[in-house]
């Protein structure tokens, strides 16, 4: 539909929006901007779930901090920014370790199993030190919050993963992991005291490489976890279904630089391949259009050439030092030319970006850092542009 805003449409019709994309392109800020926009424009109970412990985001939302618990943004913050709340906006940050512990507590059949798992060094290492666990738990926490039915819209940003799509695969990987034959091989000897024929080569090698004691630790850990396998698999499958559901859309966020754009393109392709809905591609930090304006480029050339003559007139009329004026004019021309190269490079990369049919939205580079709700809402408004 020409004239309608793709973002407004998404904010009004989806229950979950996931911002994903390469690191360092403003995913978290975009997610917060979308949440603020929805809460001030469309109403409903809106939650922003972030994985980024950015202090600035908490400040911008007028919160003391954002923790694992959901915190509501005071209405006064919106009133001060001149955008009264229609609905409500809350924020929560993902605390990986705490979310894992909660998950174990929820699924554990009894307190003893729970405590044994929580105390296991392997478990602590898995959840505390290694990023892979982040991917799964982010989706798990999202599912849990969605299932409370408390939220009309949840905007979530994703961890910057090594493999761009790890977080999408995480629920399935977790399900595969727990139903795997290899896992049975691994824990079989510890349970029965016997090594069965099929698992023997594996056990031998694992033993040579890792040592019996460590294998024992692993086995113990998984035996403790076994009582929860069923729950885990069911849950992981439910998370995967929610992602593929038509209530959920993905927003690929990038900047216009070559490397992030390559990743964004890959992301869009992968989402299409998995039949997941790509709602829009959002490009942040776009340079002003005037930098690619041929008329402005001609003016820059004329300025460079005529700096001396112009300096004379400007210096006289504005009562300035002629040499200083000439120096400044030359710098103005040079600065324009420098940035024009970058703007052209980025504009051309944007034009060539395949978006799998999704609308491409751009947000101009902000002059300072986004420090308050006004800044977030400014980004939100830029995203509201109707589809071309």
């Amino acid at each position, binding site marked *: 539909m020409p004239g309608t805003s793709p973002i407004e449409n998404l904010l009004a019709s989806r229950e979950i929006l996931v911002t994903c994309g390469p690191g360092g392109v403003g995913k978290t800020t975009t997610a917060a901007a979308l949440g603020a926009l929805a809460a001030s424009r469309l109403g409903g109970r809106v939650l922003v779930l972030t994985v980024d412990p950015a202090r600035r985001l908490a400040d911008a939302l007028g919160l003391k901090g954002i923790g694992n618990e959901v915190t509501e943004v005071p209405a006064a913050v919106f009133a001060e920014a001149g955008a009264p709340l229609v609905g409500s906006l809350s924020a929560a940050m993902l605390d990986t370790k705490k979310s894992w512990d909660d998950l174990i507590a929820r699924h554990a059949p009894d307190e003893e199993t729970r405590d044994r798992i929580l105390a296991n060094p392997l478990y602590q*290492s898995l959840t505390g030190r290694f990023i892979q666990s982040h991917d799964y738990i982010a989706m798990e926490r999202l599912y849990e919050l969605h299932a409370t039915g408390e939220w009309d819209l949840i905007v979530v940003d994703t961890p910057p993963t090594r493999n761009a799509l790890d977080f999408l695969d995480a629920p399935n990987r977790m399900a595969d992991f727990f139903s795997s034959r290899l896992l049975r091989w691994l824990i079989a000897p510890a349970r029965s005291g016997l090594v069965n024929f099929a698992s023997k080569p594996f056990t031998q090698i694992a033993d040579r490489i890792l040592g019996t004691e460590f294998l024992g630790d692993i086995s113990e850990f998984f035996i403790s976890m076994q009582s929860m396998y069923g729950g885990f698999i069911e849950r992981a499958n439910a998370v995967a279904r929610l992602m593929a559901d038509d209530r959920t859309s993905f927003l690929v966020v990038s900047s216009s630089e070559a490397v992030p754009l390559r990743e964004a393109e890959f992301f869009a392709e992968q989402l299409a391949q998995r039949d997941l809905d790509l709602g829009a591609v959002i490009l942040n930090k776009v340079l002003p259009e005037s930098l690619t304006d041929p008329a402005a480029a001609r003016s820059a050339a004329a300025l460079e050439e005529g700096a001396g003559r112009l300096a004379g007139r400007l210096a006289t009329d504005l009562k300035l030092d002629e040499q200083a004026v000439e120096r400044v004019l030359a710098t103005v021309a040079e600065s324009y030319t420098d940035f024009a190269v970058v703007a052209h490079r980025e504009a051309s990369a944007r034009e060539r970006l395949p978006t799998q049919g999704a609308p491409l939205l751009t947000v101009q580079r902000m002059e300072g850092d986004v420090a308050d709700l006004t800044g977030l809402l400014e980004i939100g408004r830029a995203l509201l542009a109707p589809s071309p």
Partner: protein
Amino acid sequence: MGAAPLVERNLIFVTGKGGVGKTTVAAGLAQMLADQGRTVLGCEIDAKGDLSAAFEVPPSEFVPQRVADGLSLMAMDTEASLREYLKLHLRIPIVGRIGPVAKAFDFLATAAPGVKEILTIGKVCWEVRERHYDTVVVDAPATGHIVSQLSAPQVINDLVKVGLIRSQTDWMSQILGDPDQTGLVIVTTPEEMPVSETLELVAAVEEKTDVDIATIVVNRLLPERFSPRDEAVFDKIGSKKGRAILDDELGGGALPLLEAARLATVLRRSRTQHLDTLRSGLPAGLPLILVPELFSRTDGLRATRQVAVHLGEELL
């Protein structure tokens, strides 16, 4: 600190927050060292092909490929690394049927923390130990992952008491912890988030690993356009009257020029503040290298060469 100069070390990890130009700096560093006559292996951990793209060559593979004088590239592949490791060290009959073992291992790597990391770090340490190259430059994982990568030998030591892996971690730790051999380069830009992540990373590396932070590279520094006095002049030229004169002389189009210059000035000013925050937050004595914004048309070989020149000026 008494460590060797960066250019004389054998193993250099380059990390940084996504989007700061980590790969370009890793490529520029590898290029600069190769230009000095050293044999260099560039190793890409993420295997997204960004490092090869910086040299405009096809995506690299696990087996190093020579791409220029003194310069080879490889892409990390933990399964291939395991294959090589088993072949070199284990010599057990199962080697012929690597498929199921690798699969089992891949599974185990998910279950047992540090296994994937040790295969990655082990491969690069091995290249260093065998002296196949003068320098191995690793385009390492982004800030969120680098600490678990570099501390993998310790993690393994904590968890695994015996076994082949355990016996391998000592020599790796020795290479990683030797500031004459190994150095970490953290790339950042003078922007808010990259600076705060860099400061956090410096603290985490010092606390959790033995790896020496050799230098911080501040990428994309904007040139100072105006001195404070010239800025006052610029403001007057940008006034209504000044703009009218410019429009008259240029036949219109003054506004976009002035706006571009103003954007450049504002960006420069905010970046200078973030650079100051970085400087004051870093431990004393940690070197800082500045690389200017390139304003280049691509981020390919030309950008790599320009970065190499800047790094050479600072490091040689």
